[in-house]
């Protein structure tokens, strides 16, 4: 039992991100309003970004920027002092991709609104079936 509790406590970042992801996924599937689905999509992508960034943390490490690096003292750099820079780089890309997808989704929502005058999915489907 203590084993289970220590596992749960040591990895609490993973449980948080899984919860966020599932909230976002549920919103995308179950909600009726198109904009709420877009918001769910954003939550889903943000949870993945959180997951990646949490991979890079190291106990006792500081941000991956070398201080006083251009001076005449050449310190030896120990990797254990700095957190992992690679997930941050990957997530810069993922954030930009998320923003781009959000822009395209909103543009599509505006086009749909111009055609059907509503953003609720069931009303749109009734209008489509009538035509």
């Amino acid at each position, binding site marked *: 039992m203590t084993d289970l509790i220590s596992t749960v406590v040591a990895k609490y970042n993973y449980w948080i991100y899984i919860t966020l*992801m*599932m909230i976002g996924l549920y919103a995308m599937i179950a909600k009726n309003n198109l904009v709420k689905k877009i918001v769910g999509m954003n939550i889903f992508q943000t949870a993945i970004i959180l997951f990646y960034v949490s991979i890079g*943390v190291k106990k006792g490490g500081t941000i*991956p920027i070398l201080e006083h*690096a251009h001076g005449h003292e050449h310190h030896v*750099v120990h990797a254990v002092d700095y957190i992992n*820079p690679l997930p941050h780089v990957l997530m810069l*890309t993922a954030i930009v991709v998320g923003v781009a997808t959000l822009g*395209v989704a909103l543009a599509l929502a505006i*086009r749909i609104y111009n055609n059907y005058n509503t953003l609720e999915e069931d009303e749109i489907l009734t209008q489509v079936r009538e035509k």
Partner: protein
Amino acid sequence: MRIIGLIIVVVTGALLIYAATDFPAWSDPASPASTYLSPYYIEKTMEETSVPNIVTAVLADYRGFDTMFETTVIFSAGVVCFFLLRIPRREEPEIRYYRHVLTGVTIQLKEGYKIPPSADFERIDAVWTPPDLIIKTGCRILIPFIQLFALYVIAHGHHSPGGGFQGGVILGASIILLAISHDLRTAVRRMSEKLIAILCAVGVSIYAGTGALCLLLKQNFLDYSALAGVLHVDPITARSHGILMVEIGVGIAVMATMIWIYNNISSAGRYRQGL
């Protein structure tokens, strides 16, 4: 739909929790991710690229190809928003509304007539509210400082957190602030649509062009050490300068795209009032 959604969410969540039991504990310094590839980046960045900000060095040099395509992603989002939403201005006659600035009198002209641009009359739309004087003046004072800060963020990407994306977004936000605090026409008069669209493409071209320049100088694509001959420095400093060049390209592209997307979405393609 809710039941299907619940089932899918529960199944997926169970799978992910099941897998997470195998992960290394949080902030474990001996995890595979922290011991395999990243020590190389942390220890060798200064001597190979002379850029103290390791994230910028990895972003723009080691994995610079990814970043070029990321800039392309944001560029293509701008093009998609323009492609889908923009309704071109027809030359058909339309009713125009003008407001005399000094007295506040609004006039409506018949179809086809218009007043040439002048300082006394501003063009407004059928739904229009006067922008608040405090907000207008406050933003007008703030915007140059915001832009200055954005340029600082781009230029200091080597030494502090920052870089092209962050600075570009702040630059774009300054123009969007102008559009929000005044109205869209004012912002479009400052930076016209054609200028923004061309700047967007120019920004990505700076990035891809730097890489192509390295290609022409007989190295692999995006190998900045090829620029050593052109810039008359040693290859390591050439990498640092190459990173700066591509960051500037990224900054310009991101700024232009943010403004472009905002213009198209907030006015639903009509470029009239905006929000």
